[in-house]
């Protein structure tokens, strides 16, 4: 079973985000980039399938050379190969397009499965997975918290409001991973050593179309003022009822 895993890197979740002076991005000072946590669940699930059924796991990232470190981590966890796509992507549609081109070229067609996180914690678009499925014309199951498979069909659980949906699909398909799917492994020394000799291919893929979206600017969300400290539960309930009028 040959699986493609798409991997993004994002500011560490504990990072305080400062907007850059041009208002188009964030101030990079002091920000460390980690593997997008949801992509880590996707990678772990792919590695588990490789262990069970054999095959390979190839990792695909869209970005600059700063991605190398997190790609090495993926290789140390057990991925076999990696492709770093350096294209001037502007939005999720671009990312889905260049990923689909790179994946097609790498596998000579559609791989057995494409796994990625349900969203990246930077832009939280949650678009790339379903868009990839459309590019490959295969089923997609998003926000997955459970997977059982015999290698031919897969039974997946996806999280919805107040419950779960059970979906059965046949390979190939796209899966977007949600927290709860698994516990990602930590690379061991053997993996880290092995990763050093694994190939990272770099390629540039031209964008297909004009930009579908333009980011005008980023703003800080309105800061809340610290409110009133009240002495008792009865006072609080009175304020919520009479002042805030939410009860």
């Amino acid at each position, binding site marked *: 079973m040959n699986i493609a895993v798409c991997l993004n890197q994002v500011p560490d*979740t504990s990072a*305080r*985000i400062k*907007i850059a002076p041009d208002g188009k991005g*964030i101030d990079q000072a002091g920000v460390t980039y980690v593997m997008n*946590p949801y992509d880590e669940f996707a990678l772990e699930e792919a590695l588990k399938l490789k262990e069970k059924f054999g095959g390979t796991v190839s990792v695909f990232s869209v970005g600059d050379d700063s991605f190398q470190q997190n790609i090495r981590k993926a290789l140390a966890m057990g991925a076999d190969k990696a492709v770093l796509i350096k294209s001037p992507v502007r939005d*999720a*549609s671009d990312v889905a397009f260049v990923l689909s081109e790179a994946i097609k070229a790498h596998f000579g067609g559609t791989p057995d499965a494409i796994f990625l996180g349900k969203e990246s*914690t*930077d832009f*939280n678009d*949650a*678009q*790339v997975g*379903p*868009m990839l*499925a*459309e*590019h490959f014309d295969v*089923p*997609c*199951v998003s*926000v997955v*918290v459970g997977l059982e498979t015999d290698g031919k069909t897969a039974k997946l*659980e996806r*999280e*919805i*409001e*107040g*419950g*779960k*949906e*059970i*979906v059965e699909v046949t390979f190939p398909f796209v899966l977007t991973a949600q*927290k709860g799917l698994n516990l990602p492994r930590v690379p061991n020394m053997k993996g880290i050593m092995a990763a050093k000799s694994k190939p990272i291919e770099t390629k540039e893929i031209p964008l297909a179309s*004009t930009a*579908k*979206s*333009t*980011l*005008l*600017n*980023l*703003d*800080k*969300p309105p800061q*809340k003022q*610290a*409110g009133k*400290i*009240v002495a*008792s*539960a*009865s006072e*609080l*309930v009175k304020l*919520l009822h009479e002042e*805030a009028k*939410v*009860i």
Partner: protein
Amino acid sequence: MEAGLNRLSNNLTQKILAMPTVLVFIEQRNGQIKRASLESLSKAAELAQGGKVVAVLIGSNVKGLADVLGKYGATKVLAYENSAFERYAPTAFAKLIVKSVKEEAATVVLLASTAMGKDLAPRIGARLGAGVVSDAIDLKEENGKLIAKRYAYSGKAIASVVLESEVKVFSIRPNSFPVKDTHTGTAEVVVSTYNPETADLRDIVKEIVASAGKLDVAEADIVVSGGRGLRDPNGEGKQNWENLERLAQVLGGAVGASRAVVDAHWRPHSEQVGQTGKVVSPKLYIACGISGAVQHLAGMSSSKVIVAINKDKDAPIFQVADYGIVGTAEDVLPQLIEEFKKVVSHN
């Protein structure tokens, strides 16, 4: 005179150009229309500025739901029925929405940003070659352009985005726009039986497992969240968590949790509020025993009113709270339950 006429006709042309046909996907589960879809429909009526507002309903038996949509601003309802559509069938739904967009020449497509809407929006975008904005919290026309606002970096920044494609797809975060049911027109209803091809049902939902009658944090008007300060539910914190659930029940709200308690397996992940959980904007958010890590604040600071209960008066949660009580869950929760009961029963 001629100049005047020309100006008049130019104005008319501009007006017609400015009146987009807006299409809204109306999500229903078990014959119940999602409130978030009505929020989107109300917004669509505003954006259409007197133009066409097309509502799309898909299900096994949805024609009965079509009639009410007029008062929320729909001018036309396309209802697609098939017994297979009792549950969500992503490929078929995307195909039907795209077909409707093309037939109605819609240029703006709105969906509620629910589990279903989030899954559909990018599929529709890819099929139409359209740009997609996910989880918009605001949508405004300025100088002939639709400017969408949305959170980025898990609530730590707000991005303003413009879509450049001819068709524009927006998923709208629940609770962002009010429901307006004051339209007087009746919508034209077109019911069609759609027979899906095998490939259309390739990712259809087989079964839904509900978490026993629980309201989801992402959909609730009131969220009552607990953190480490409530202590171990399998030990000394048992009573605290029971009280928290009781409080949620009294208020008709949902129980939420911090990442710490989810990682400790005290509560299920589906309840987690924050950067790696759910982002919520209820009208009332009560955080109990939650210190307020950046990762938690990212998920709830857009709530309308925030109440913090914490024994540490310097806890960061108080910085974003509208009202706070310094105290322990053991002391405050039972009192709150009693006080809320008085007010809620009066209503």
